[in-house]
């Protein structure tokens, strides 16, 4: 048996291999379910019900999927250029902080809702971008490894988030009311700063959050940017061969800064949506937003989508559905770890399947000279 490089990658393979990997993943996860004493088919049935079919299930799935779409897009934008921004997590926190501040301040000063939301979007982008530009600048000017710097800054961002709510002097902290005296919590956004959602009246009503719409729009913008513009062309060349980019006279530093900025801005937008769409406050509970790991799961989403922004949206929806099902079903007979195991198997088989796109396995044997001649 030999493994050979494929000279051509047929188009159907690019669809067939991920689909095949998914089927394989469900099969392999079925074995795990079976081994732990579950009926695989009924478990899958439960997952599908909890993710899509039950009343309110799709709304919950969208709640999970929206932040994953943002962090997935953030990772895809940077990874495409081989800038390994692992910091979407921290950039999302920073975006949440700045967007919350904008919402609290402008919403409390009687600005019209549309303008407040617009300002929150801008503030979220700015917060995330600024945070991402720290590793970006270090990489551009000092050739520091952005994987490490962006990862470390996630912890810093998490502490900043906690600090801003736990510190008594903080602008974000709720000081009035009974609850606030029991446990530190942040101010709730005024009504004028809440993001609207579109209701679709099927299966008990699905709320389509504004953030989900923005994520789809951003996905299209990124796709356009990367495939149809000079900027995208340069980013592509730089990602494939920094030497060739320099040779062609492209300004590498600027491009690194710009791409890191865009990546951070998209993650920060995820933070803004988190505040405006869902939490309506700054969630600093160490077991809350910080335990969701949206930034890290976003990397998985981007990898599964092969860094294609449009595919990110689809993958984010599916992974969001899986996570939603895991949250809903967890209990004595459905251990919460099971969904994690399934996610792991899916990722593993999808990345393993990549090999089959690029290589083919051939079975043959060495023949003596006479037979060959």
């Amino acid at each position, binding site marked *: 048996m030999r493994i050979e490089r494929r*000279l051509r990658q047929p188009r159907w393979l690019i669809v067939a291999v991920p689909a095949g990997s998914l089927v394989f993943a469900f099969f392999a996860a079925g074995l795990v379910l079976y081994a732990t004493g579950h009926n695989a088919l009924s478990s899958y049935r439960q997952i599908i019900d909890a993710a899509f079919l039950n009343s309110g299930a799709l709304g919950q799935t969208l709640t999970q999927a929206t932040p994953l779409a943002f962090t997935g897009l953030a990772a895809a934008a940077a990874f495409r250029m081989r800038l390994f921004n692992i910091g979407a997590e921290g950039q999302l926190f920073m975006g949440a902080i700045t967007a919350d501040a904008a919402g609290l301040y402008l919403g409390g000063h009687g600005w019209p809702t549309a303008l407040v939301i617009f300002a929150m979007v801008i503030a979220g982008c700015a917060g995330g971008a600024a945070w991402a530009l720290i590793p970006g600048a270090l990489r551009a000017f000092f050739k520091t490894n952005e994987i490490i710097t962006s990862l470390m800054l996630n912890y810093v961002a998490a502490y900043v988030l906690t600090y801003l709510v736990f510190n008594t002097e903080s602008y974000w902290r709720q000081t009035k009311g009974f609850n606030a005296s029991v446990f530190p919590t942040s101010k709730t956004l005024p009504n004028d700063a809440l993001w609207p959602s579109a209701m679709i009246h099927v299966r008990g009503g699905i709320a389509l959050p504004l953030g989900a719409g923005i994520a789809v729009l951003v996905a299209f913008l990124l796709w356009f940017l990367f495939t149809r513009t000079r900027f995208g*062309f340069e980013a592509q060349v730089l990602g494939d*061969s920094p*030497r*060739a980019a320099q*040779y062609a006279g492209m*300004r590498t530093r600027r491009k690194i800064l710009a791409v890191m900025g865009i990546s951070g801005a998209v993650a920060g937008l995820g933070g803004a949506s988190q505040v405006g769409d869902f939490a309506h406050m700054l969630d600093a509970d160490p077991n809350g937003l910080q335990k969701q790991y949206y930034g890290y799961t976003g990397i998985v989403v981007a990898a599964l989508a092969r860094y294609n922004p449009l595919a990110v949206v689809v993958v984010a929806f599916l992974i969001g559905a899986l996570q939603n099902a895991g949250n809903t079903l967890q209990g004595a007979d459905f251990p919460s770890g099971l969904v994690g195991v399934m996610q792991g198997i899916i990722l593993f088989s999808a990345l393993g399947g990549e090999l089959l796109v690029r290589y083919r396995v051939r079975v043959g044997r060495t023949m003596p*000279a006479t037979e*060959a001649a």
Partner: protein
Amino acid sequence: MTVQSEKDRRGADGAPPPPAVEMRGIVKRFPGVLANDRVDFEAAAGEVHALLGENGAGKSTLSNILTGLYRPDAGEIFIDGEPVQFHSPRDALDARIFMVHQHFRLVETFTVAENVVLGDHRGEGRTFRLRHRAIEQRVAELSKRYGLAVDPRARVWQLSLGEQQRVEILKALYREARILILDEPTAVLTPQEADVLFETLREMAVEGRTVVFISHKLHEVKAVADRVTVLRGGRSVATVSAADATLRSLASLMVGRELDSVQPARARTAGELVLELTDVWSDGDRGDSAVRGASLVVHGGEIVAVAGVAGNGQRELAETVAGMRRATRGEILVCGKAIRAGDPRSAIAAGVAYVPEDRLGTGVAPSLSIASNLALKGYRERSSSHGPLLRIGRIRERAVELIQRYSIAAPGPGAPARLLSGGNLQKVVLAREFSGKPRLLIAASPTRGLDVGAIETVHAYLREAAADGVGVLLISEDLDEILLLADRVAVMYEGAIVGETSREEADVEEIGLLMAGGQDPRAD
């Protein structure tokens, strides 16, 4: 010392001894290529046997099979008449078959002696604690006996390429190699160094070893080999005695047709000054000065060649002129205008086209499409973009047109560049560089690794560029190529231009001497 096996049965019966190496009907397929197609090869003990062929003829594949790196799809190998099967390079080493690769397999931070014992699993190499003194002594003895001067205590990164090659040969001698394969060993040597190498190889053959010498240079093959096996298109076409063969007959066997060796005369008009270098200095990758006060001029319409042994600052000089490396001192004027140091875009804007030595790493973005690579520099121009937006359709149309005009063999404009062969990749680079309407063309080793057909094409394009009034700065380690193309030859040694002559006055011996750091004889 004789290393030939004495226990051979047929030899004892009085029949002629079996060849030291025999390969019969070797077939090796790679996806899309039949690299070896029923190749037969045999070499006797005590001979220098040349393996001659163009790039892609299957020489490297065959030697990789003999050294156990590849396993043949079909065919048999006999060592001293015994059939063998190599499952790994280790098996081949155990049969005392050793290869000196074109790119040396040395650990740069180790000393010469350490490299020599590395991987040896007998004697000294096997002990837990290295007895440096004893090994160094043994290495020193070997290097003295075979005239392979190198300090056993020196660290490999401190050595020149020629010295590193000697370390590789010492490694083989230390392990008592019975069959030594050398893959294009003269590529990194000056003519004088090559002569010394040939003497060593002859001596090794006299001792009863088998030396397999891989080359595509005819005069070398003729000079050093006893017999020559010619490979063409993956097949063995002939085995001839070197003494009976002529350069012409070898060439026609190798290429399959008679080569046109007559040079078309070229009407030459020295145009205006396109490049003027005055005392240019720049740093190498290790931070030391690689270019040390180079001064040179190139006129429009002429080809100026920079000759030199690899590593004397030629690559850095090319990069400095192309703006990819910052000049620390001196002045670079292109058509009278200064280039901003270390800014490739300013060089491109001034009309500098650059065919880099490292095609795949620098000249193209390998995973991107051919169309993208053809637009790598021109994407900023009006023809390819509209403000910040790319004109995808135009870029594709242009690619189709260039693919046709330069007859690039490609599946289509959308195929990734890395799928192209070396020659076609170079055509992509040339097509792009010429379409930028340059004033100065820097070509760094533009034919390295290409086969004869592609080399002719590249040469034709360079001549054509010069005929169109472009000044061509050709950087090459191949003296034959330089003498074929250049109007003027400048020799670079240790970062400076140490001599310059016109083609008419050029003398190979003299250039070789300058390349090796000898004085310019006319300076005395």
